[in-house]
């Protein structure tokens, strides 16, 4: 989790430093190969690819962090409602969630993306609200396990309020597992966001790795793919890989 906070802080710094960075503007050096002036070459309107990558990083990653937070929070809230409800209602909620899970999120995303071409905030919200359903069962199992433990029952018996129990007993116990869920969600959301951007269904002004890959698609038949396609693809893959390794090395692994 600490790694993520560091990452978010670093990205916010990067975002704040954006005015200091060279501007991502077009120039006369069109489709220049990597060299002295442009370390990673330039694209079809002469924008420097390295600068583009730097500008796209906070957009891509912060959006994923925010969307994953929305997804995890939504899952937790629904799991909380289900945990507090009677068995019948809980079963109903779970059945609905199961059924929601069957509809591929890409269908919904393609539909909404076409209509709205969401920007940064819209994308975070959209992806967050279409990626929570996989976590509800896991979160519910965690919550119920913790709520039935004797420390919670004892505290309740001694007159502690529900909020006190949630805050002091349940939340600390499920935090590591929640963190693992959160990281998994970051992966999911990054994949979907990149897919949407790759299909050109996000705000065209929003610079992301997926969007840069889409721009590169026109140059597959020229040598320019080498510096237009590979850098954003590598950035995307290494980010996803780092997130995967983070979950695997987490001692409080929640492969539930």
């Amino acid at each position, binding site marked *: 989790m600490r790694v993520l906070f560091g990452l978010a802080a670093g990205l916010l710094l990067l975002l704040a430093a954006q005015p200091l960075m060279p501007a991502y503007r077009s120039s006369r050096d069109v489709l220049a190969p990597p060299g002295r002036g442009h370390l990673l070459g330039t694209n079809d309107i002469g924008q420097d690819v390295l600068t583009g990558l730097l500008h796209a990083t906070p957009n891509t990653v912060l959006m994923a962090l925010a969307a994953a937070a929305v997804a995890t929070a939504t899952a937790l809230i629904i799991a909380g409602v289900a945990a507090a409800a009677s068995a019948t209602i809980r079963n109903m909620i779970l*059945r609905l969630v*199961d*059924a929601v899970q069957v509809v*591929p999120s890409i*269908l919904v995303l393609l539909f909404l993306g*076409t209509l709205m071409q969401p920007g940064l905030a819209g994308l975070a919200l959209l992806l967050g609200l279409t990626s929570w359903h996989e976590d509800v069962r896991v979160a519910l199992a965690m919550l119920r396990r913790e709520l039935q433990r004797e420390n919670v029952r004892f505290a309740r018996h001694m007159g502690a309020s529900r909020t006190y129990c949630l805050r002091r007993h349940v939340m600390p116990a499920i935090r590591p597992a929640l963190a693992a869920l959160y990281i998994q969600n970051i992966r999911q959301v990054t994949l979907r966001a990149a897919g949407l951007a790759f299909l050109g269904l996000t705000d065209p002004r929003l610079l992301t790795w997926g969007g840069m890959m889409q721009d590169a698609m026109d140059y*597959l038949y020229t040598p320019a793919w080498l510096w237009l396609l590979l850098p954003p693809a590598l950035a995307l893959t290494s980010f*996803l*890989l780092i997130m995967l390794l983070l979950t695997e090395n987490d001692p409080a692994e929640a492969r539930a």
Partner: protein
Amino acid sequence: MTAGAIPISGRAWAAALLWGLAARLAVLMLVVLAVFILPRLLPGDPLGVMLSSDYTQNLSEAELAELRARMGLAGGWAEQFGAWLSDLLRGDLGYSATHARPVATLIGESLPWTLFLILGAMPVYLVLAALAGTGAGRAAGGRFDRGLTGFVTVLASIPPFVTAVLLMLGLAILWPVFPASGALPMFPSDRPMIRTGQIALHAILPVTALALHEFARFYYLARGEAAVLAHRPFVLNAVARGLPPRRLLAEYYGRNILPIFVARLSDSVSGLVSAVVIIEIVFSYPGIGGLIYGAILDRDYTLLQGTTIAVAAGLLALNWLIDAAGTALAGRG
């Protein structure tokens, strides 16, 4: 889905079945509502978008009104929704203006291609993942396991569209052994044998991309199960008896891994569809994904709505059937 609760009586089974059906109908209703309402919340309407983009300019008021009525945009929302829903219930998904054909026909033409890709990729990744996963899991921590698992971890981090683009780049553009797009050449052969060959050749890259994407999921599954099985007494005993390796693999590992794979398959359908949609788009394959993308590019909302609803309904029905079969099997023991 989960086969957690094992129903004891036929009545409990029927009740679970009905509840499952109700939940899926509710979700389908949500999809239908969202698909109906969302486009109408935007400024303008599909007709306005159609007119502003290109197509027919200079239409008279009467023609506009008729077009509006044909697109189901006449009257208030409630009236429109009622008409639309009754059309849907009769199986009428609307009429695509850009293709000049009914949406249902278009879906009927694209669906076989998508199923072809999925059914082509499924045996490939299931068999490979079972073999590789068993091989790695049997000697968990060994050199083969570490190498392969490391490779699969990287593979699992490559988004499906990146895999597809790289495959296309490597094997269709830089070293053009396979066609880069479509399901058939521009002028397909009339002879069935050659035609089949052409279809197969065009399917190889999309199928590979899909199989690579799904491989990781099942690899981890098989590896985890094999790692557990390798220490079970009946396997240790069989190894000590000197059972032929092939029999050990098929009868001891295979039989235990199969049910887990089957259970996971029904879970993975939605992810599989997501991947196939995007892979079809990259390879301009004429399946459902290609149809949806075409609808997006042409701003053909009727087609987009119809396809979204049809795919969602199809998957929900399929999932319900798998679930019913699963609970029936679990109930039998």
